[in-house]
């Protein structure tokens, strides 16, 4: 199972409390995780990536295993620790404020 951590506003929209767990077939990639997430929580469509172009929204970042994966290709396999559920995949609102 893939563990996904959403930012607070998206947890509210999806009506979930803590982590989300998703079943994702191999290979586990950014794209396959996001598709599984949006299929289960369609109210999140458009909030993480554009409806049409599928590009990541500019103020949304993807972190896992202490790495910034925001600029990786959507089809790059995610780290094994994410694929096995040992580490969560973090969807994060870009830092703002001072």
């Amino acid at each position, binding site marked *: 199972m893939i563990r996904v951590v959403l930012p*607070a506003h998206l947890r509210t929209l999806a009506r979930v409390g803590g982590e989300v767990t998703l079943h994702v077939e191999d290979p586990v990639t950014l794209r396959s995780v996001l598709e599984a997430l949006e299929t289960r929580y*369609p109210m999140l469509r*458009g*909030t993480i990536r554009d409806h049409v172009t599928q590009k990541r*929204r500019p*103020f949304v970042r993807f972190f896992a295993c202490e790495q910034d994966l925001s600029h990786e290709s959507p089809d790059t396999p995610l780290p094994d620790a994410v694929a096995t559920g040992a580490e969560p995949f973090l969807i994060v609102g870009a830092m703002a404020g001072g």
Partner: protein
Amino acid sequence: MSGIRLLVGTRKGAFVLTSDGKRKQWDVSGPHFAGWEMYHLKGSPVEPNRIYASQTSSWFGQIIQRSDDGGKTWCQPGTPPGEPTTTPDGSPKGESNKFVYDTSPETGKPLTTHQHYDGTQRPWEFKRVWHLEPSLTDPDTVYAGVEDAALFRSTDAGQTWQELAGLRDVKGNLWQPGAGGMCLHTIMLDRNNPQRIYVAISAAGVFRTDDAGKTWRAVNRGLKSQYELPDPDAEVGHCVHRIAMHPSRPNVLFMQKHWDVMRSDDGGGSWHEVSGNLPTDFGFPIDVHAHEPETIYVVPIKSDSEHFVPDGKLRVYRSRTGGNEWEALTNGLPQRDCYVNVLRDAMTVDSLDPCGLYVGTTGGQVYASANAGDSWEPIVRDLPAVLSVEVQTLT
């Protein structure tokens, strides 16, 4: 027993303020959608407990919310509360937050470009919904004015949205963003002619359709923008901040432009200035008294570079002559050390008698007058910056 429900959108959530017809004691509920920018909420005139809301964020984009119980509970129309979020075959239900410009050959227009701040051309890119205008006759039909400027319509209570793309065809390459972005912020439906709709765009001007949105034309003759446009009386490009009309006289329009308060007596065919003795003719909102079609209200602010009321005094100005002759309404409003603004959707009138008037400020106050502006009292003082105020008169 009549009642009043105010729908207040702020930078950090929505609030619903309710009162009986006396408009003295108010209940405050909220924040709804805490932490999100709530650009606009508006109820259906034919089914008042149905309210549409625009919830938006620079981070997570656009969400449309709907309430069918007067603002007590809300749902994203594509995903009603308590129902599965997917269809039996696992595909997602309606996507109420999906606004895609119509580029189809059958109904749409090519996604051309508009002017950017620097004068270069940029393609249209959806950013947010500024204004929601429910149909006057059908609770499932609602219009959305969006940034980058376009008009969308939903006929399934907000589940899906279709662009009325003919609007972008009216010299869209000359439209440009105002300070807040290139937004379609005003939608006026004509109660007497269902085929006629007016919209206003910053900075493009006023546009009118007489065939329910298929084709449009600019109705900006008489506007002058000598500091904003190379051709001051160009057909499009004017920074119109807000337009208003009285339902009994749909050909008489009032406008607060970037600078200048304007009036048209022929459905936008031509405009003339009615700023008269206002201390400054820059401002955002304009509205019309519910029972007196020649009584109008504006809230002047100092200038395009100083977006706050002049002299530290919040003054609503009223004209009982359809413009030109204005009186300051100050009783109960702060008259010293006040530097707030009232944004374009943040003034509204109820339809009780005497007519009630409401303004929300960027300082988080919502002021109410139960006597057409003669005197004012704050309903709330410390909300986040107010983006919009709409009123529902409930009977």
